[in-house]
């Protein structure tokens, strides 16, 4: 981008600041300005055009310093672009590509891409057909996700949403997929914690963080998800599958509301502007499974939405639910009971995840869900205080064991084949009335063994590949279960 004088001389149009209002500046002049065009102030600062009338141009600025009345403004005939490239790996950047961490030798990538692009048409889209592993059994076995799916992560504050997202990033990064975490208006400490988590687990070279703090200009915070999506699209076109996390869109909607009210847009429901749905929909529609020149590649998007006291019927929450392929609901009651992650499988939905599962996984999925439904009903029934039958007591006890199996620590991720194997062992033990826990406290050791000993993992993968149905798997457990368990525990 050139300087103010260059654009003044080349384009020969000028504007003057008439009024400012926090992140919005009203400018007169600039007769041929276009929306989303970049404008430069005499001071060298930039902004983009939000809208214009016959005599006023409304500019969204990306700085907090005040600007005086009468300051000259020029338009650039250019649109906002973000630098993209492999130089971004391991970096925390702002939406304009500037590094936020004081790291040595950061060279801004020379390649740039426009932030505001239309989503791809239907011809380049492919059906979602490959499962995305999160490393968490309650998602991978019960609420499966697919590459290219848009799955909303929704719940109250402090219900473990960010922990779940970090675990998903950990699993995907270890599989050499690219992960982009967009932190919108977060506390600096939370952004730092995310950075430290990535460095600690040695995956920062597969992850890019696009972030703004809560005290950054709201214009910048508004751009964060669009910037992150643009970076994701670049890597998709370069031949990578990308996981994109937008944390969180309810905050983003609040920033957009503030910008719109300052820009004198007519307020709609809850004072949000009427195009709130459009703003988020045009962003989320850029994710999906695509046919690119480098093959079938996907951008999987996990937008986050915060609820208040579990209210799923909020305006922004229902908006995003309707534009995603399902949602994972983090229940604060489950969290209070100690369930980790606190995902409520009865209130969660995955619209396209099950089509990515093999027949074996679908069998297991059906088995777990139907059992959990029965167990939940039995729990509700037991609250009446009536005497329970033996069958009911057994159901409740088994329910406890299944829930214990689905619980997982914050920094543990389990490969999906290991999940299938251990669940099959558990179910076989239950069917044979054995009260043996195949998981217990040495789960971490088993995960480590599976990940580090190829001879063990190869055998397990082979067993699972051979089993066509859950019944086949249970039969195999009867024959080889003890042997497999001891090889994992050794």
């Amino acid at each position, binding site marked *: 981008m050139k300087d103010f004088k260059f654009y003044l001389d080349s384009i*020969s149009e000028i504007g003057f600041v008439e009024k400012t209002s926090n992140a919005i500046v009203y400018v007169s*002049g600039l007769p041929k300005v276009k929306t989303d065009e970049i404008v430069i102030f005499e001071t060298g600062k930039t902004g983009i055009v939000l809208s214009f009338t016959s005599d006023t141009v409304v500019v969204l600025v990306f700085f907090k310093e005040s600007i005086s009345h009468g300051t000259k403004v020029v338009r650039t005939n250019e649109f906002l672009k973000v630098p993209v490239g492999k130089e971004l790996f391991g970096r925390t950047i702002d939406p304009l590509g500037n590094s936020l961490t004081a790291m040595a030798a950061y060279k801004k990538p020379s390649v740039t891409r426009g932030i505001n692009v239309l989503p791809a048409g239907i011809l380049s889209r492919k059906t979602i057909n490959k499962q995305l592993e999160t490393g968490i059994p309650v998602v991978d076995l019960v609420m499966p996700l697919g590459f290219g799916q848009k799955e909303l992560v929704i719940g109250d504050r402090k219900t473990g949403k960010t922990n779940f997202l970090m675990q998903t990033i950990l699993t995907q990064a270890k599989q050499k997929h690219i992960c982009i975490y967009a932190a919108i208006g977060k506390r600096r400490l939370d952004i730092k914690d995310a950075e430290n988590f990535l460095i600690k687990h040695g995956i920062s070279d597969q992850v890019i963080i696009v972030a703004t703090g809560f005290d950054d200009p709201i214009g910048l915070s508004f751009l964060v998800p669009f910037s992150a999506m643009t970076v994701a699209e670049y890597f998709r076109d370069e031949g990578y599958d990308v996981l994109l996390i937008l944390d969180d869109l309810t905050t983003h909607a609040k920033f957009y509301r503030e910008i719109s009210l300052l820009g004198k847009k007519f307020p709609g429901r809850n004072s949000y502007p009427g195009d709130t749905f459009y703003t988020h929909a045009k962003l989320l529609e850029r994710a999906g499974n695509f046919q690119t020149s480098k093959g079938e590649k996907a951008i999987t998007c996990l937008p986050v939405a915060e609820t208040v006291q579990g209210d799923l019927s909020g305006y922004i929450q229902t908006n995003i639910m309707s534009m995603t392929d399902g949602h994972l609901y983090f229940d604060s009651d489950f969290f209070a009971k100690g369930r980790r992650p606190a995902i409520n499988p009865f209130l969660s939905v995955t619209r396209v995840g099950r089509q990515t599962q093999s027949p074996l996984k679908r069998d297991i999925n059906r088995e777990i869900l139907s059992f959990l439904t029965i167990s939940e009903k039995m729990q509700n029934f037991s609250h009446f205080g009536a005497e329970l039958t033996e069958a009911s007591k057994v159901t409740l006890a088994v329910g406890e064991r299944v829930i214990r199996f689905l619980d997982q620590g914050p920094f543990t991720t389990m490969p999906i084949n290991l999940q299938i194997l251990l669940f099959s062992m558990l179910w076989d033990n239950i069917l044979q009335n054995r009260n043996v826990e195949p998981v217990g406290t040495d789960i971490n050791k088993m995960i480590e063994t599976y990940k580090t000993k190829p001879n063990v993992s190869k055998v397990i993968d082979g067993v699972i590949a051979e089993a066509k149905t859950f019944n086949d798997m249970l039969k195999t457990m009867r024959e080889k279960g003890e042997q497999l368990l001891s090889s994992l525990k050794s």
Partner: protein
Amino acid sequence: MKKDVLIYFDLITSLKTVQEVASFASEIDTLMLGKTLDSISSNSAQKIKEVFSKNNLDINDRDTVAGFLETLKGLLKKFKVIKLVLAFDPTRKTIENIHNFVKETLGIGYILDIEISQDLLGGAVVIFNGKYSDFTLKKGIEDTFANKNAVLKLIQPDSRR
């Protein structure tokens, strides 16, 4: 309607710069608060009295005066501003000459916003309706020297000699 607007013709055409319009507008505001003509400048008061007498309007009729001032204030807002950045501080005569030129070329309803910037050396920058045109001596010299470097390179003596 057209006849009503013509009443204000002499008043409108006597205003040449943004500062004059702003000053006159604040005097109108003073009069609209119910003050008498003695509370504004004698020049403006004289002009208003002339308009009333020329058009047989009753200056003592409160409603007539209020309507007159209201319309006048509305007309003052409709002026189109031509901003000029000059390298010198123009005299009153110079401003009148420029304004007359504008009136002859574009018609009435235009006022001048004059800014002084001595580093332009000469000429003027003209800004109107967001369009910016630089006719300054400074730009001319910069453009000449921008090309001159290319010319100098061509005529540079051969370094092998």
